[in-house]
C-alpha cells in the first residue's frame, strides 16, 4: 500500500504539493473573478479606468472644514475632503469615547450603588441598540432645535439652531506665532522635566512638583508672553445675514450627531473593557499598596491602572477600529465622509462603482492598519519589562 503512493509518501513533497495547489486554486479563482468582471463591464459598455479622478466633480460639498471645495474641483479632491472628514469624526470620536469609557468603567466599579447602577443601565442601553438608530435619533433631536432665525443665544457669542452651533472664530494676528512657539517649547521642557524628575525619584526618593511646574510652563508663560506682545488675537463673530449666519466657526448637526452617537456607543464597550482590566488586577495588589500607606488615588494611578492597561489595550484597539469603520454610517444623516462623498456621490455621477469602492476600501484598510500599528507599539511599551 505504502509503496504505491510514490512521491506522496514523502511528507515534504506532500506539504509543498498541497500548498502549491491551494495557492494555485486561489490565484485561479481571483483570475476568473477579475476577468469575469472586466468582461461584463466591457459587454455592458460601462466605462473603466482611473481617469475620472481628474474630471471636475460638478457638485458642491458644504462640510469641508479643512479644504476649500468648489464644484469645479476634481473627484480626487472629493476623495481628500472625504478622508479628512472621516478622520475628523473618527479621531474626535476615539478621544471622547476613551475619556468617557475610562470614567464610566471606573464609576461602574464604585461602591456607590446608585452610580454603578446608572452606568450599568447606560452601558446596556447604548451597546444593545443598533448604532444606526442612535445616529438617526441624535440627528432627529438636533433638527428639532430652533430655526436659524430664532437661534438660542448662549453667553452672547454662541448661537444654537438646527443649522448647527455657531461660535466666534479666532483670528491669529502676526505676533501670535511667538506664543505658539512658547507653547511648543513649554511642552517639550515639561516632558523633559518629567523624565528628569522620575529618574531623580528612582535614585534618591526626592519628589519634584512636576504637575504644577508643567501647568506653569504650558499655560502661564505663554499667557504672560501673549499680553506682553499686545494680545495678537481677535475673534470673528457670526452674524445673521440673509438666510444664514455668516462668519464664525460652525459645527454642523450632522457632525454632532455622528460624534455623539459614535462616542457614546463606543464608550459603553470601552467602559466594559476598562472594568474588566481593573478587575483583572488581583485584590492582593490593592491590599498590599494600601498596607504600605499609599493614597487611594495613587493606588489607582501607580498600581492598578498600569497593570490593567496590559489587559485593556488590545481590545481597546479593536474598539478604535470599530469606531472608525462605523463612521461610514454617516451617510444616514448626510455627513460628508468618505463613503458619502467619494463612495456615494462621485460613484453615482461617474458610474465607476468598482474603482470608487476599491479606493474607499483600500482607504479604510490603511486607516485601520495605521491605528493597529500605533496601538501595537503602545501595547508593547506598557507590557511588563523583564529585567
Amino acid at each position, binding site marked *: 500500500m505504502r509503496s504505491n503512493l510514490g512521491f506522496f509518501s514523502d511528507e515534504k513533497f506532500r506539504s509543498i504539493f498541497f500548498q502549491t495547489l491551494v495557492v494555485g486554486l486561489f490565484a485561479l479563482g481571483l483570475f476568473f473573478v477579475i476577468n469575469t468582471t472586466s*468582461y461584463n463591464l466591457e459587454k455592458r*459598455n460601462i466605462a473603466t479606468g482611473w481617469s475620472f479622478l481628474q474630471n471636475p466633480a460638478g*457638485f*458642491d460639498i458644504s462640510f469641508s472644514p479643512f479644504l476649500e471645495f468648489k464644484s469645479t474641483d476634481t473627484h480626487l479632491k472629493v476623495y481628500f475632503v472625504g478622508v479628512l472628514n472621516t478622520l475628523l469624526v473618527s479621531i474626535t470620536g476615539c478621544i471622547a469615547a476613551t475619556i468617557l469609557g475610562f470614567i464610566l468603567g471606573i464609576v461602574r466599579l464604585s461602591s456607590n450603588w446608585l452610580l454603578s447602577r446608572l452606568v450599568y443601565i447606560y452601558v446596556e442601553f447604548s451597546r444593545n441598540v443598533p448604532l444606526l438608530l442612535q445616529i438617526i435619533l441624535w440627528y432627529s433631536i438636533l433638527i428639532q432645535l430652533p430655526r436659524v432665525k430664532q437661534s438660542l443665544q448662549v453667553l452672547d457669542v454662541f448661537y444654537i439652531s438646527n443649522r448647527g452651533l455657531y461660535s466666534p472664530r479666532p483670528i491669529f494676528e502676526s505676533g501670535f506665532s511667538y506664543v505658539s512657539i512658547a507653547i511648543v517649547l513649554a511642552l517639550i521642557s515639561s516632558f523633559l522635566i518629567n523624565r528628569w524628575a522620575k529618574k531623580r525619584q528612582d535614585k534618591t526618593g526626592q519628589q519634584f512638583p512636576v504637575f504644577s511646574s508643567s501647568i506653569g510652563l504650558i499655560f502661564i508663560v505663554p499667557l504672560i508672553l501673549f499680553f506682553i506682545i499686545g494680545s495678537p488675537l481677535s475673534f470673528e463673530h457670526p452674524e445673521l445675514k440673509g*438666510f444664514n449666519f455668516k462668519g464664525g466657526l460652525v459645527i454642523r448637526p450632522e457632525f454632532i450627531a455622528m460624534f455623539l452617537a459614535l462616542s457614546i456607543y463606543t464608550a459603553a464597550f470601552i467602559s466594559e473593557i476598562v472594568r474588566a482590566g481593573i478587575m483583572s488586577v488581583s485584590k492582593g495588589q490593592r491590599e498590599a499598596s494600601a498596607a504600605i500607606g499609599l493614597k487611594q488615588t495613587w493606588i489607582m494611578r501607580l498600581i492598578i491602572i498600569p497593570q490593567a492597561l496590559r489587559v485593556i489595550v488590545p481590545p481597546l484597539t479593536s474598539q478604535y477600529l470599530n469606531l472608525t469603520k462605523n463612521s461610514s454610517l454617516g451617510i444616514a444623516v448626510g455627513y460628508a465622509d468618505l463613503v458619502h462623498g467619494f463612495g*456615494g456621490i462621485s460613484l453615482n455621477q461617474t*458610474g465607476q462603482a468598482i474603482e470608487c469602492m476599491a479606493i474607499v476600501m483600500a482607504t479604510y484598510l490603511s486607516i485601520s492598519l495605521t491605528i493597529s500599528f500605533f496601538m501595537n507599539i503602545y501595547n508593547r511599551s506598557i507590557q511588563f519589562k523583564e529585567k
Partner: protein
Amino acid sequence: MYKQNLYTQIIVGNFKLNKSIIGINLLICYREAIFEKRYLNNYLNGENNMKKLLSIFAVVAFAFSAHAGTLDDVKNRGFLKCGVTTGLAGFAAPDDSGEWAGLDADMCRAVAVAVFGDRSKVEFITTTGKSRFPTLASGEVDMLARNTTWTISRDVNLGFEFVGVNFYDGQGFMVPSALGVSSATELDGATVCIQTGTTTELNLADFFRLNGISYEALPIETNDEGKENLFAGRCDVYTTDASGLSSTRAAASNPDKWVVLPEIISKEPLGPLVRHGDHQWGDVVRWSLNAMIIAEELGITSENVDAQLSSNVPEVLRLLGVEGNYGEMLELSNDWAYQIIKQIGNYSESYEANVGPDTPLEIARGLNALWTQGGILYAPPFR
C-alpha cells in the same frame, strides 16, 4: 473512486492535446457549460483561444443576468420587476389602498400589460437616486421608470438605454412663502436641500456658479428626507424637478405656506430606461410608451377602445391589433396595445389622473401636451 478516475482521464487526455489549462477549466465549468452549448461547441470546433475560454466563464458566472433576453426572463418569471421611486406622489407612490399609483407606476403597468395582458403582474421595487443605476445594471429590475433624466453620460457611459420620455420636466426651487423670495437669484447664502446622485445636484452647482452667488448644500437621499428637512427649517430651499416640487408641496400640511419659484434652470426629460444591448426588450418598453401617446393622438381612450375596434382608420386598426402582426414582431400577443389602452388608458388619461390640474399636484400639460396641441409630446408613426 470512479469519479476521480473520470476527472483524471479528462485531465490526462487534455495533457496529451497540450491543452492542460483548458482541460482543468473545462473540468470546473463542465456542468455549467452544458447550458452554454454555443460556447462549448465553438470550443469543440477548435475555434477556441484564451479569450473565448474566458467568455465561457464570464457567461457562466453571470448567466442569470447577461445571457438571455430580458423579455424571455420576464415571461418565465411570470411578472415584471420595475424600479420606481421610494415614493413621489403623482409619479409612483402607494395610494390609500396600498396600490402603487402614478405616471411612472402606469408606465410599469403598461409594460406588464403588454407582456402578460394583466396590469397586476408587476412587482414595484423602490430605488433611491443613488441605488437605481446599480439596481438596473445588476438585473435586479427589468426596467426603471423612476423620474430619471435622460443624459448623454447615462445613456452612453453607464450602459443604459433610454427608450423615450414620459414627462418633460425642469429643475425648480421651492421656498417657504414667509421668506418673501420671488426669484432664485435672491437665494444668496441659503441652505439648499438636494438629492445626491442626481442631475439636479450638478445643475444646482452650475446655476449658483453662473449667478455668482453662494449656497450651502445639504445632501439628502430621498424625497421624504428632503421634505422632513425643509419642513423642519434645516434647509431654506428644496430643489428638484418642478413636478417633484409640486408633489412635495401637495403633501405639505398647508400647501399655501410654500411657493415654487418661477425659474426653471434645466431640461429634465424623464423617461423609462433599460439595460443597453437588449434591443428586443428596449423595443417592448419603448412601444408600450408610444402606444399610450399614439392612442391619445388617435383619440382612443379606455372607454371607447372597444368601439374603436370597428373603426375605419387604418392606424387605429393597426394599433389595436385588428390589422397587421405588430404584436408578433415584438414577440407579444397581437392585442398588446389594445390591452394597455383598455387597462391603463392613453397618455392623457394617465396624466390627468396622476399629475394633471385636477389632482393635488396641479401640473398643467405644458410641454407635455401633444405636438398637435402646443406641446412636444410626439411618438413615431405606428406602421
